[in-house]
């Protein structure tokens, strides 16, 4: 919690961007982009989440230790996803269409 007071117009700008990208993700969902539908949806969601974290949650103005804590959370999340997914993909417990 830094003492930095974020100007209100930054909040309004972030809010406008979040609305814009919500509209974009809905519009993109109705277009057939093949395998990229998921990529676009997740990309936009990640961008929106980053905006919220950096500005609404003040991480941009916080000590770098906070950013490190978040980066570590992401690293653990990747461990969880990559290892579990790798296990499911290679064991054939579920009839995967991709296999």
């Amino acid at each position, binding site marked *: 919690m830094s003492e930095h007071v974020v100007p209100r117009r930054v909040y309004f700008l972030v809010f406008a961007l979040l609305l814009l990208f919500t509209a974009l993700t809905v519009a993109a969902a109705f277009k*057939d982009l093949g395998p990229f539908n998921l990529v676009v949806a997740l990309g936009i969601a990640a961008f929106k989440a980053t905006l919220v974290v950096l500005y*609404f949650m003040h991480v941009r103005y916080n000590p770098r230790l906070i950013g490190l804590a978040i980066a570590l959370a992401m690293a653990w999340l990747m461990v*969880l996803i990559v290892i579990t997914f790798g296990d499911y993909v290679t064991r054939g417990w579920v009839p995967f269409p991709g296999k």
Partner: protein
Amino acid sequence: MRADSGAVAAAHAHQFEDAAQQRDAVTLGMWTFLVTEILFFGGLFLAYAIYRWSFPSAFALASRQLDITLGGVNTVVLIASSLTMALAVHAAQTGAGRALLGFLLLTILLGGVFLGIKAVEYRHKFEEHLIPGASFHMPVSEATLSGDIPPDQAIAAGVPATALSAPAEIQRHAQIYFSLYFAMTGMHALHMVIGLGLLAWLALQCRKGRFTPAYFAPVEIVGLYWHFVDIVWIFLFPLLYLVGRHA
């Protein structure tokens, strides 16, 4: 801000050097909790990813049962509540007590609207027999069934297209989708309810004049929690409502 003056000294606990150090400790502590929350929801998202990858056709069909308008409106409502929460923190920082109370109440109102819309959606799902269980039945037209399964997927799976699109299979796999839908949105809604309780408590404390520009840590960390809940929805909305709309 140094702890030289009496007024500021009262604003931090004795184990901290100064108010700034206390603020950093509070923020790091809250983020440590949020890290555990990220991994908690991460497990749910992982389960969703594994089953969506396993049963893409059923997931695409099932996701079309959701009301995209209600989901979209709820997304906007929740983003707006994040804005009012951020403005509440701004009001606390600048010592605008009345504005702080106003923004807290506005955030509570928007959170209530979100839960209300969610309740309407749950009611629809109940009436449409989309609760997983014995009476689960997802309406799937024959045209959808025959035309919606990409043949390359069936061939890649080594399964005849007829078997893949068998109504019983689709119904079974759609129940997995709806189990995940209720687990994920239910956990999210539970977090919202807890958040609303915390906001109500903040509003009460604010009315008692507990927050000053030198001390408003509870406002800031409840704000962090509220924004986190918003982020979870930012991922839930496209994954649950928008997946498979294009097909």
